[in-house]
């Protein structure tokens, strides 16, 4: 039955001596509006919406119209970089123990500036208990919302917006948490909420859900019956007892009745025939641990069985578990998983949620924010401001924690993304698409290397961040804070690789970007990019001319080589940034020579050339990588050839800055400048055969399931039949195994000796992967 976790835990005394760390908790209160609170049996979850003002680097083209010819602009930078304040929306969620509720309310009252806020949405069984206190302290009217409605709303929200929200728990596997890549369509699903009782809810659409069943045997039964049997008062302690016990001392097993297995029915001897059956027939004392364990099995198995019966009846395979019985407790996640596996013979997997504890608060908040239409936007988890899974161990006794003087809290921050994100329509199977090539949660060796690598690179990033804001003396201090924050994240991930879902090179890069943004370093590479772009533009015509003189075959090879050589110029790669920093003369031609000779590490060049001898592609979508030499001397000559062949080209670049990747706004300016020099590009732009779109991301990697909606529309409208993905981040760390429904070209230079070694090559090895989907699967 429903009832999400309302239980008397005994009243904890309010400890007002604890002061809150204002830099870390309840951030942006001065801009906060729209509060919501979910008060459970022991934990309070507070939600609010704020606007965050942070700096962004903007580029703006100088007005060159007054100048007579191109030559006169020599020496002037191509475009102007300015740092502007931008306001973005952020959702804050904070979880803390009920004992601190008064301290927290006082803190909020003292810091809350916004007077427009009049009500606070409240849910959870404890909401009525604290209603008066909240109204008195905050002078806000408490507006109660239905618990289950909030829960479902919250669940839909996290499933839609957080890619690695759901996971399978496997106690004995290499990694306990196996994150699921979210299915593009999250409905229908079953949510089993195990509070004091159990509610089984079938969710079919955003606002369509039904409680199809429930059970009175739930967390309250474990707690209540457990307290009677063992004289242990706290839920956490009961779980601890259970994890030490032997249920076979208390339960009657099949082998206790049969002497072995019940073979004809396939019931093994170790199966529980009768829970607590031995305490009915034997006259002896049973240990607390054994009884607690037996009780845990009894309740978990029972819930699992009912869940399976309902899943079967309604033909549902996605079953999520939540409620205080589950909430981050490995013990119960394990027993529930075991039970589901047993009863469905593996057909249904028990799924758990990283932010399960926040669902009610998120839902209550969304109810209150309906006029802002939060569901119209895409949101992204901010790794800098979120604590991650198991940041506070549920096994730790809160009284012990209070004594140690810390204020334990857990946070989730979500940023509103400016663009709505959708799947690339050209994915062969969106449901099975996984962007990341290596899951560092499971690959311990790779995890160790990459964590080390990012830690090693940290000094360089800090230096670059400071250099990008030379005019601001306090940048040094901010950069230091950034260093501490990111190093702390890396340390957390070393011990809890599962903290933010599957750990990947992409998530490590994204976390770094989030941390840089957090301390107002929106684009540490802006000046380097500017300089490089300026320099490369000067060579553009020369490169184009030299290519034009070649025979067709030679030209094609040269263009591909140019593309690859351009990709060597990547400040994100350690080996290259060393070279670039010590020897700025490292030139384009030299880079070509550095490239591996054919046959390359992955070499489908011959097939590509054969294809080029055939009819031209209708439209090529090119996910570009670095600015400077890469985009100007590598990509542009290459797409120029495609345009001449009669293929339309869509260049997809990042919406926001990441490392030295070219951003959409930079690319706009660069393209204009190239068009001014090159009639082919000029004509293509004018005739709309060359289009620039943003990809919706600010990552050096690429998640093809979260792309700008506009891009998806353009791809569809233009009948795109070729996708080119360039660079280590987009074509190796991610998408290496991505299957597309049209032809694709994935190319990169491996600029990391460890990775090269792993792939069976050497540094500067070339990957040139050309794939054609089999006819049966292709879209025609």
């Amino acid at each position: 039955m429903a009832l999400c976790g309302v239980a008397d835990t005994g009243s904890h005394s309010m400890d007002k001596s604890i002061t809150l760390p204002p830099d870390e908790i309840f951030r942006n209160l001065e801009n906060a509006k729209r509060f919501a609170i979910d008060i459970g049996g022991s934990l309070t979850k507070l939600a609010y919406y704020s606007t965050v003002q942070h700096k962004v680097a903007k580029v703006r083209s100088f007005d060159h119209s007054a100048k007579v010819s191109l030559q006169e602009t020599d020496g002037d930078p191509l475009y102007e970089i300015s740092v502007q304040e931008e306001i973005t929306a952020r959702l804050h969620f904070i979880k803390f123990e009920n004992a601190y509720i008064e301290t927290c309310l006082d803190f909020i009252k003292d810091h809350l500036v916004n007077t427009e806020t009049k009500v606070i949405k409240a849910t959870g069984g404890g909401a009525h208990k604290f209603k008066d206190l909240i109204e008195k302290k905050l002078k806000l009217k408490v507006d109660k919302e239905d618990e289950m409605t909030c829960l479902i709303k919250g669940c839909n929200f996290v499933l839609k917006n957080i890619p690695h929200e759901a996971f399978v728990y496997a106690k004995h596997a290499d990694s306990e948490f196996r994150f699921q890549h979210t299915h593009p369509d999250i409905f229908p699903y079953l949510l089993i909420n195990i509070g004091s009782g159990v509610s089984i809810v079938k969710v079919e659409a955003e606002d369509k859900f039904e409680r199809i069943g429930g059970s009175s045997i739930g967390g309250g039964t474990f707690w209540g019956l457990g307290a009677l049997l063992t004289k242990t008062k706290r839920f956490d302690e009961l779980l601890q007892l259970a994890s030490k016990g032997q249920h076979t001392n208390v339960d009657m097993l099949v082998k206790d009745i049969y002497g072995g297995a019940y073979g004809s029915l396939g019931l093994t001897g170790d199966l529980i025939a009768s829970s607590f059956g031995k305490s009915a027939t034997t006259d002896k004392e049973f240990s607390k641990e054994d009884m607690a364990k037996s009780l845990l099995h009894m309740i978990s198995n029972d819930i699992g069985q009912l869940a399976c019966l309902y899943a079967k009846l309604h033909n549902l395979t996605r079953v999520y578990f939540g409620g205080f019985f589950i909430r981050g407790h490995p013990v119960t996640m394990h027993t529930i998983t075991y039970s589901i596996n047993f009863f469905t013979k593996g057909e249904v997997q028990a799924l758990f949620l990283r932010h399960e504890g926040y669902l009610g608060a998120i839902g209550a908040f969304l109810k209150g924010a309906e006029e802002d239409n939060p569901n119209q936007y895409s949101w992204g988890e901010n790794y800098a401001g979120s604590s991650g899974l198991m940041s506070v161990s549920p096994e730790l006794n809160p009284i012990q924690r209070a004594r140690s003087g810390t204020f334990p809290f857990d946070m989730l921050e979500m940023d509103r993304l400016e663009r709505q994100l959708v799947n690339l329509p050209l994915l062969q199977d969106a449901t099975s698409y996984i962007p990341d090539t290596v899951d560092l949660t499971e690959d311990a060796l790779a995890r160790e290397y990459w964590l080390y690598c990012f830690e090693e690179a940290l000094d360089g990033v800090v230096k670059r961040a400071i250099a990008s804001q030379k005019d601001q003396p306090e940048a040094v201090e901010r950069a230091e804070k950034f260093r501490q924050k990111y190093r702390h994240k890396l340390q957390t991930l070393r011990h809890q690789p599962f903290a933010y879902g599957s750990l990947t090179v992409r998530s490590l890069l994204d976390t770094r970007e989030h941390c840089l943004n957090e301390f107002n370093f929106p684009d540490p590479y802006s000046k380097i990019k500017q300089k490089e772009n300026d320099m490369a533009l000067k060579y553009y015509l020369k490169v184009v001319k030299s290519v034009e003189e070649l025979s067709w075959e030679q030209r094609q090879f040269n263009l591909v080589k140019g593309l690859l050589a351009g990709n060597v110029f990547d400040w994100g790669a350690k080996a290259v940034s060393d070279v670039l920093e010590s020897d700025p003369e490292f030139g384009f031609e030299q880079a070509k020579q550095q490239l591996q000779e054919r046959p390359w590490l992955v070499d489908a060049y011959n097939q590509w050339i054969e294809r080029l001898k055939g009819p031209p592609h209708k439209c090529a979508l090119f996910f570009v990588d670095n600015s400077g030499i890469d985009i100007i001397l590598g990509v542009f000559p290459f797409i120029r050839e495609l345009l001449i062949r009669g293929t339309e080209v869509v260049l997809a670049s990042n919406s926001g800055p990441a490392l030295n990747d070219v951003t959409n706004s930079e690319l706009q300016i660069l393209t204009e400048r190239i068009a001014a020099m090159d009639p082919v590009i000029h004509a293509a732009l004018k005739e709309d055969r060359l289009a620039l779109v943003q990809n919706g991301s600010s990552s050096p990697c690429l998640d093809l399931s979260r792309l700008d909606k506009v891009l998806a529309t353009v791809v569809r409208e233009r009948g795109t039949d070729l996708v080119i993905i360039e660079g280590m981040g987009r074509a190796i760390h991610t998408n290496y195994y991505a299957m597309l429904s049209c032809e694709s070209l994935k190319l990169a230079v491996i600029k990391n000796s460890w990775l090269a070694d792993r792939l069976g090559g050497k540094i500067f090895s070339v990957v040139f992967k050309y794939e054609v989907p089999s006819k049966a699967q292709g879209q025609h």
Partner: protein
Amino acid sequence: YILKCTFPWFGMDIGGTLVKLVYFEPKDITAEEELEEVENLKSIRRYLTSNTAYGKTGVRDVHLELHNLTICGRTGNLHFIRFPTAAMHRFIQMGRDKHFSSLHTTLCATGGGAYKFENDFRTMADLELLKLDELDCLIQGLLYIDSVGFNGHPECYYFENPSDTQNCIKSPCCLDNLFPMLLVNIGSGVSLLAVYTKDNYKRVTGTSLGGGTFLGLCCLLTGCETFEEALEMASKGDSTNVDKLVKDIYGGDYQRFGLQGSAVASSFGHMMSKEKRDSISKEDLARATLVTITNNIGSIARMCAVNEKIERVVFVGNFLRINTVSTKLLAYAMDFWSKGQLRALFLEHEGYFGAVGAFLELLKSSDDA
């Protein structure tokens, strides 16, 4: 048609908690037969039929005795005896002391104990068991008893007005067509079978929350020792002092989901609070345990019936013995949650069908011989 099978005729079902024994007492013994009858066979018959209790824990359920049954050409009475599985070794010893092996009868046994104690029968009493599958026996025994009836009355009954506690009355019923039925056997644990014909059935699922769980938890919570004691306490208790109801949380019905205020939201939910734990009576605890286990079985049975598309749910097993609290609750649960679609049926010889099935196998096996 003369049966060659020698007396005594027994059928035995050795469960996790109880051993169930059926014994056929021939009433048509001729003088000639009487003369030939060996002494220890006579003494076994006398011992079983003249007592209603055996040792400290053995009981004959006299009220269940079936009179004037004609089976395989013989007429007599069928007796129903039970004793705890814990006393199994004493029982085997008795078999040895009475030289049971000299009678050259086959001992038909079913239940897990037929496997577990097989070797003990052999080594201690020189007896060979004919082991039989417990679910086969259960179904054959049930169908047989239902067909012969209960001394002129129907074996089967149900509750009229199950959702109305005031007017809920036990009524006998005759089943013209038993199939398909969902058979829920509640012993120490619970098995649920979908039975389509007399030889076609499947075990749908089972649960470990059964009679053993009720008694086990009651023993731990109240210090009681027997099923009778536990039921006696439960009959006097009030589970709403122990369980958290919907109205305890919502102040009334939870209308959003159509849940009545009187529905149990959390079994033992009140026991999370120390004050409530300190003030609770043993009777209330026993009642809550009984209600929890019974409702849970009802809930699983109902879901299985719906999944298997079966409307008749037959509850058997010794958990239901002298347990009207549970039978009424099951009848209510089936009716209420299915909105009248499902009907709960019960049988008078609730726990003995396995033993009857084993007994029938004895006659069948000697038939074949």
